């Protein structure tokens, strides 16, 4: 069939495209489906289960059949609905779910096996052996029955996201949506008009009815021009609102470059999060088919879609068509097609009282009971008045009535309400707040009603928002009544399709009924009715009607399944909506990051931070060589490590000391100005959760440090305490983590090195002892802070300068410390040093351990209350006798593996004999063997005992000697030198 006359396509331009390798031509304004029909292609796909030949059923996003793979290579996308793919030059499409070809598909054998492949077939058949399901059955079934294939390559396109706010969101650009947008925009409201189509007009583009006696498209064009001139309306074509969320938030996807041959740097799609004070749902209605025997052949389509293809795209699947209808709308199709010189073989109207609306053969009270044609419709069987006949036709338009698109209105568990006279579910009363249905979505089926209801919905919204708006003069339009007879399926023994996409027939629903899968949610899952890409837009109501008939209940009694977003298939990439790979999430860089990069450091991700893990030097071939060297430098000379990532919180106010007393389990209010104290915080439930240092810079000014991992959490908890628990205290908080570059200067020569940068500051042990702190200047006047604290167990300091000077400071320290052996060290050496010293860190403060377990039980002050203190004394926690110990392999060459579980020698290795676990382990260059820390039952009483560390994951175990949890300078003399 070639093109009909008319249509909204640009015949002055030709677009070349291919389908299954064959070249075709279409025009701008075409969809892939309309262009294929215009080229005489009716067969566009194979069905999901039976591999039945299928053609396009609809002219919109509800399309269940014409699913194709679009584009090639990494851009290949399966399951694209040909009915909504805008044609572009060079488009390449392929049919899917067929082998070797669309015309001859070997798996069509499934169709012959259909008596076996009924609903629940897989569940009943592939039950044993159980293990075969995942490995064998499911993959095999998925290969045989499926939709398109993924390219298995990374998506090369980019996606975007954005945020829009408006007074009034109009969902749908048909008659109702346009009238609503016009009303609100002229009233001065901020309006967004979103439509999934590439051309505004909705159903106006499909019909021949006039507006004010002129072409409907002229009225739409005038409106578009007006919208263009108004600053307060944003028209978004190719934009589908797919979900309604809380508080007036709507999710929408805009196709930015899907319709272009070359994206040329543009994003492919944009995910918009639209916040609207009010919205109108003008999403129109979807026509439903009538189920009859063999009603799925290519050429059988919805009558309204057939009219759309003829009127909008000047395309028709055949020169001879018939129409099967239960309402007046089918007659409109016959009338419009006849006007374009298509031969009308017959109009079969299920209603005995039906009257012809034109010069065509009417079979009133008739039913279509069968069809013929392997790859495309050839004839239909019609029964009427006790007679049966075969009528030849290449296409059949079917209209079983219209279902308002209530989906978005039902997204907040809103239940649509059945209307008996319209035989359809209408929007209920309990839809999302602020969303007003209008037009065909609210069953205003005539153009005049749609226009009026759109304007009224906008007026209502404007009234609610206090925006003065008046209804515009609406054009005169057709006001036809809509009458429909309750005919959903034609009784018969052969298979009659209800859900085309999932190959669900009336028989399957009968089987579900017989097997007691009667509630609609069971029916859906047992038969797969309403699943997959179309979510049953053309099938659900028919399926319910069939079930209702079987159970003898009404359709509303049968009920609907829950409506959920998204309304149409949405790509995961656009939901991700932004960066992938390195920029997937923000990275935080330390002030010495660029310097460390220059030194060839290896980095490790610590939350969002990138930290230097170790600094390999020439000749070092294994990371441990670097780490041993770095740790050795700290023990024997001086090491430098960027510790900026530790959280820093500035605490000020008259009650700062009291505030910290309540947060830390130990006492902070008595801390002297110019001194630092180690502090431990407990959770509300009494477990330990974070440790750090607390420095008092002034009577009313403390600086708290946290672990890197808990910096955000501690700050948040402190803010909660300040604002909600003790708002009576005078205390002010602010994070200064990023403001200061903090560098640990650790090792016996640290004082000598620091002496070279401080400006006349006395670093002597007397003037600045262990746990002292001070504000001072370094390097000729740079403001700085100095803390004499040690994580390594050596004489050590942390010096802080404004972050922008961190880079220069470490350069200067390296330069001035060259003769002292100054060595940068990373997080690996940091870990080795603290394990050697027995300092608890993340693995020990895992959220499952108590202060007593870590050996800090006496820190929980009895003299005051603090968060978690009372709960830490409850039986379950106080009775836990596991204690932190050091562990050394009995065989010096033996391994200590963190995560291993500890058992008494000779004891069975079971849960009830478990005596603890290894928390941290490393090779200690100081001890010259591996060492570990771990929690051991009554560990403090078992020093010198040999225990077994079991590592069943790797089938290993090791004999370990229990030692004190400090391998270096147990008396702490080096710290205080």
């Amino acid at each position, binding site marked *: 069939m070639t093109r009909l006359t008319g249509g909204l396509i640009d015949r002055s331009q030709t677009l070349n495209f291919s389908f299954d390798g064959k070249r075709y031509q279409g025009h701008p304004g075409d969809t892939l489906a309309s262009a294929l029909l215009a080229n005489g292609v009716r067969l566009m796909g194979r069905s999901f289960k039976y591999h039945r030949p299928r053609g396009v059923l609809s002219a919109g996003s509800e399309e269940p059949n014409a699913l194709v793979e679009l584009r090639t290579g990494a851009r290949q996308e399966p399951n694209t609905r040909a009915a909504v793919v805008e044609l572009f030059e060079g488009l390449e499409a392929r049919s899917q779910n067929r082998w070797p070809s669309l015309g001859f598909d070997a798996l069509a054998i499934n169709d012959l096996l259909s008596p076996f492949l009924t609903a629940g077939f897989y569940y009943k058949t592939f039950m044993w052996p159980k293990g075969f399901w995942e490995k064998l059955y499911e993959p095999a079934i998925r290969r045989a029955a499926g939709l398109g294939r993924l390219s298995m390559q990374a998506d090369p396109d980019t996606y*975007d*996201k*954005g*945020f*829009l*706010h408006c007074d009034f969101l109009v969902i749908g650009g048909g008659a109702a949506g346009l009238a609503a947008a016009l009303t609100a925009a002229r009233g001065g409201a*901020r309006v967004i008009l979103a439509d999934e189509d590439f051309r505004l007009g909705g159903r106006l583009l499909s019909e021949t009815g006039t507006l004010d006696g002129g072409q409907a498209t002229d009225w739409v064009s005038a409106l578009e021009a007006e919208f263009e001139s108004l600053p307060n309306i944003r028209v978004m074509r190719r934009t589908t609102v797919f979900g309604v969320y809380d508080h007036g938030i709507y999710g929408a996807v805009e196709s930015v470059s899907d319709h272009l041959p070359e994206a*040329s*740097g*543009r*994003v492919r799609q944009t995910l918009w*999060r639209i*916040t609207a004070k009010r919205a109108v749902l003008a999403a129109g209605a979807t026509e439903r088919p009538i189920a009859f025997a063999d009603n799925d052949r290519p050429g059988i389509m919805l009558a309204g879609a057939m009219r759309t293809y003829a009127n909008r795209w000047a395309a028709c699947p055949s020169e001879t068509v018939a129409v099967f209808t239960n309402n007046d709308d089918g007659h409109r199709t016959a009338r419009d097609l006849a006007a374009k010189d298509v031969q009308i073989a017959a109009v079969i109207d299920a209603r005995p009282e039906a009257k012809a609306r034109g010069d065509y053969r009417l079979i009133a009270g008739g039913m279509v009971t069968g069809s013929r044609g392997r790859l495309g419709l050839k004839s239909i069987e019609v029964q009427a008045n006790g007679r049966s006949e075969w009528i030849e036709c290449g296409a059949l338009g079917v209209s079983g009535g219209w279902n308002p698109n209530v989906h978005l209105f039902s997204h907040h568990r809103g239940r649509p309400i059945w209307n008996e006279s319209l035989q359809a579910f209408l929007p209920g009363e309990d839809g999302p707040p602020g969303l007003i249905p209008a037009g065909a979505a609210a069953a205003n089926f005539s153009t005049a009603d749609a226009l009026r209801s759109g304007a009224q919905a906008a007026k209502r919204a404007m009234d609610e928002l206090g925006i003065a708006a008046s209804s515009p003069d609406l054009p005169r339009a057709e006001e036809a009544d809509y009458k429909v007879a309750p005919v959903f399926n034609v009784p018969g023994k052969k298979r009659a399709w209800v859900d085309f996409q999932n190959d669900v027939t009336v028989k399957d629903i009968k089987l579900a009924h017989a097997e007691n899968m009667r509630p609609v949610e069971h029916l859906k899952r047992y038969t797969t009715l309403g699943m997959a890409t179309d979510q049953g837009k053309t099938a659900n109501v028919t399926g319910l009607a069939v079930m209702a008939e079987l159970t003898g209940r009404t359709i509303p009694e049968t009920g609907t399944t829950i409506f959920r977003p998204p309304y149409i298939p949405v790509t995961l990439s656009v939901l991700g909506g*932004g*960066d992938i790979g390195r*920029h997937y*999430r*923000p*990275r*935080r*860089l*330390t002030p010495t*990051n*660029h310097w460390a990069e220059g030194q060839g450091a290896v980095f490790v991700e610590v939350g*969002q*931070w990138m930290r230097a893990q170790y600094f390999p030097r020439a000749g070092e071939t294994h990371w441990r060589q670097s780490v041993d060297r770095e740790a050795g430098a700290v023990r024997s000379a001086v090491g430098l490590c960027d510790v*900026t990532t530790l959280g820093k919180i*500035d605490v*000020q*106010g*008259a009650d700062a000391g009291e505030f910290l007393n309540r947060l830390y389990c130990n006492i902070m209010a008595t801390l002297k100005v110019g001194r630092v104290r180690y502090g431990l915080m407990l959770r509300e439930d009494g477990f330990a959760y974070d440790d750090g240092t607390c420095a008092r810079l002034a009577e009313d000014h403390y600086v708290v440090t946290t672990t890197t991992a808990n910096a955000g959490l501690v700050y948040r908890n402190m803010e909660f305490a300040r604002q909600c628990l003790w708002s009576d205290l*005078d205390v*002010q908080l*602010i*994070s*200064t*983590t*990023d*403001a*200061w*570059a903090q560098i640990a200067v650790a090792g016996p020569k640290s004082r000598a090195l620091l002496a070279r940068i401080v400006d006349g500051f006395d670093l002597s042990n007397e003037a600045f002892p262990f746990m002292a702190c001070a504000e001072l*200047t*370094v*390097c*000729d*006047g*740079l*403001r700085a802070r100095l803390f004499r604290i040690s994580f390594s167990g050596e004489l050590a300091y942390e010096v802080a*300068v*404004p*972050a*922008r*000077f961190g*880079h*220069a*400071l470490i350069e*200067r320290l390296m330069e001035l410390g060259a003769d002292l052996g100054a060595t940068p060290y990373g997080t690996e050496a940091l870990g080795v040093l603290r394990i050697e010293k027995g300092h608890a860190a993340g693995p020990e403060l895992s959220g499952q351990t108590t202060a007593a377990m870590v050996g800090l039980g006496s820190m929980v002050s009895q003299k005051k209350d603090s968060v978690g203190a009372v709960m830490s004394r409850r039986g379950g926690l106080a009775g836990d006798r596991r204690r932190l110990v050091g562990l050394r392999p009995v065989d010096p060459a033996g391994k200590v593996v963190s995560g291993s579980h500890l058992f008494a020698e000779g004891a069975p290795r079971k849960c009830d004999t478990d005596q603890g676990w290894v928390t941290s382990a490393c090779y200690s260059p100081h001890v010259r063997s591996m060492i570990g820390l771990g929690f051991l039952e009554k560990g403090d009483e078992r020093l010198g005992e040999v225990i077994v560390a079991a590592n069943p994951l790797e089938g290993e175990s090791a004999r370990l000697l229990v030692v004190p949890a400090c391998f270096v300078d147990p008396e702490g003399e080096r710290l205080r030198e």
Partner: protein
Amino acid sequence: MSELIPITALGAALPRLASFGALEIRENVGLALASLALRRGTIGPRPFGLTLPGPGRWIAGQGVAALWTGPDQWMIEYEGRADLGFAAELKQFAAGCSVTEQTDGWVAFEIVLRAGSRPLEALLSKLINIDLADFGPGRARRTGIEHMSCFVIRRSEAHVAVLGARSSAASLWHALETAAKRLERK
């Protein structure tokens, strides 16, 4: 002045500057910042003569400005004073207040539109979930940009500043640059 030479948040000697059509994004390394919070019983300080603004607002004087950051809390900005200890200077004007140096905690990106106004709104709509109709000059918000907590300040019709954590300056620049480049391609 110290002999040490600072680097920018983006790790360079000089601030970054880039143009995308009519949009210009400039790293403002001269901006001094300090937080100011009222202590119990303190009433109405007027640092540098500024009337401290209410929620969601930013107010500017001569080179100095303040934005509301929470109940009884503000961030004070001073153009071109980053080299000095700004907190110490501010303290003299803020008796009875807690003042904390914040200059190095943040990176400031100034986004200036040289013509029209639409591109700025279009850029912001890709970055922040804020109703731009209510975000005219003098408005400021704390909000998220690509999972980074930021202050966004509408300094004038054609000028927006984004303040983000200094450590994630590169990620923030990437987010702004990506959005601006995409806008340029439209």
